């Protein structure tokens, strides 16, 4: 049922033709790598050969355990970090070519914004809410104070933040209110790509629901593209069109959210989905996660922990291939499996 917005799936090495007339992707990651030196000539492969697209107005989820590289990937896309290899093509320009240090002054800076996980940590304790939301406006759009203040009022209303709270400091605001300030700040400069890094993780359950409703409404009203990182799979399922699953720096499955959750094809995704409380029998994983330092390129990263592991997995790392409606990196993914 691919009647969602036209999707262009990019995989390496052969591109798969899109089911409908392709629309130019807003963001296109091409063979992205990020490695860190950990001394002694060894390297940690945080992001390993990741390629996927985000179409305009599309909402893509990014899930995976801690250490899988999703935080690093997100920081690469937001240009807070430099890539080791690969291209980040955004509306036709390769952003990876601009060093992160200089990106603050780049013309694309306002187009990609991010909402952080911890609302308390991501607000400067000495700035009022108004000052925090206004800063990107004055720095990135050249607005004067008066204009910027008007825009602050506008976006505060959009996120349901009462105007009287704008003159308060973060420590005078509740968790939910701080979360709204963070969202308002990101939206103020009218980005075309919004990255949400675990936006409800630090919030109480009752506040989470309100923020989720806000996010859903904004997504509808503003039509921006969203990259939604979360460990809460139920939330990802709710708010995204497609979802990408990462494991140890690699993409293991990507496809329409409903399909991935209802019939996951990669053994890791299957175990992840089964671990959600209330999902019934759990697929248990044995052993510890393999090391991301200098991993042997011909071995599947999930080998050793995978409930199904065969000789082939240690000789040949599986490429992403189309299985049913998802791209899956596993030799044994079965299109017929539920």
């Amino acid at each position, binding site marked *: 049922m691919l009647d969602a917005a036209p999707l262009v799936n990019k995989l390496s090495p052969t591109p798969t033709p899109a089911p409908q007339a392709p629309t130019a992707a807003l963001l296109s990651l091409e063979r992205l790598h990020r490695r860190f030196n950990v001394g002694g000539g060894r390297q940690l492969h945080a992001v390993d050969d990741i390629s996927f697209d985000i179409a305009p107005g599309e909402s893509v989820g990014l899930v995976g355990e801690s250490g899988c590289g999703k935080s690093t990937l997100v920081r690469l896309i*937001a240009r*807070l970090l430099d890539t080791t290899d690969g291209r980040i093509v955004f509306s036709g320009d390769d952003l990876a070519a601009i060093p992160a240090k200089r990106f603050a002054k780049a013309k694309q*800076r306002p187009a990609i914004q991010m909402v*952080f996980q911890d609302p308390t940590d991501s607000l400067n*304790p000495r700035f009022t809410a108004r000052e925090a939301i206004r*800063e990107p406006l004055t*720095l990135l759009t050249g607005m004067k104070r008066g204009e910027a203040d008007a825009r602050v009022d506008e976006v505060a209303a959009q996120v349901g933040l009462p105007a009287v709270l704008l003159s308060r400091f973060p420590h005078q605001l509740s968790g939910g209110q701080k979360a709204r300030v963070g969202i308002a700040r990101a939206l103020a400069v009218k980005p075309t790509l919004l990255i949400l890094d675990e936006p409800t993780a630090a919030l109480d359950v009752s506040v989470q629901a309100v923020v989720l409703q806000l996010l859903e409404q904004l997504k509808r009203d503003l039509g921006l593209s969203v990259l939604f990182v979360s460990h809460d799979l139920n939330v990802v399922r709710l708010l995204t069109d497609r979802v990408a699953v990462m494991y140890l720096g690699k993409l293991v499955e990507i496809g329409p959210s409903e399909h991935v959750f209802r019939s996951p094809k990669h053994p890791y995704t299957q175990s992840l989905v089964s671990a959600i409380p209330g999902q019934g029998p759990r697929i248990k994983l044995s052993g510890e996660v393999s090391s991301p330092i200098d991993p042997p390129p011909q071995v599947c990263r999930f080998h050793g922990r995978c409930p199904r592991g065969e000789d082939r997995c240690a000789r040949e790392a599986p490429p992403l291939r189309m299985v049913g409606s998802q791209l899956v990196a596993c030799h044994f993914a079965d299109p017929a499996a539920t």
Partner: protein
Amino acid sequence: MNETLKHIKHVLSENPVTMLAAALFALFVLIAFVGPSIVPIDPLASDATAALKPPSAAHWFGTDALGRDIFSRTLVATRLDLGIAVSAVVLSFALGIALGLAAGFFGGWWDTLITRTSDTIMAFPLFVLAMGIVAALGNTVSNIVLATAIINLPFYIRVARAEANIRRGAGFIEAARLSGNGDVRILAVHLFPNILPPAMVQVSLNMGWAILNAAGLSFIGLGVRPPTPEWGILVAEGAQFIVSGEWWVSFFPGAVLMLAVFTFNLLGDALRDIFDPRRRT
């Protein structure tokens, strides 16, 4: 502005000790400004007939070996001592914080260079280093200020570096980058105000230390030259008379010196409270 004044009043009234410190501080500042105009007797006027007289109605703190009124001299010295201390601390603060921020935020060779310099300064007994600097550069007030500033640099560098290090990975710093802030602006607008509270306590402690430093240097003959009244010199002039019983010559200037240092130390906490937005309700 109104908010700020209200907040300052609130902080001061919370703690009676803070009130006391603030009052004393205000008194010292007042004396520093108007002291020379309100002295009862010319601090430089000597009167051989009235030498070494104990405290009396005519001379509240008594007179010294040259018959000069100690009270007037002590009062007038306030301006010089405070002036030296404030100049030294301001200089030290500005330079030290800037260097510390750079070291903590950028890391790498910035950090190595600045930290090693700081370590080198701290390797010396600080007073000896100050002596050395003044002796090498010459006996002037500006050199005392310079020397005091240099030996106090490491404290500011250390505080700023530690705080910058803690905060450099903070969410709001990353958010600042997303908002279009370059490195320099992040340091100045985002980091600096947040390290102010711990830095302010340092400033106050430093003021006390700077006064002691200047007094100490003058005591041993480096720095301010007699007959200019300065607390350290006044104490030095009276040192030889303690044994023979004319205790007041050293005592009163010393007591005032002690009171000044005490005031600044007490003020440290109050300053930190004033600058910390978390205390505002």
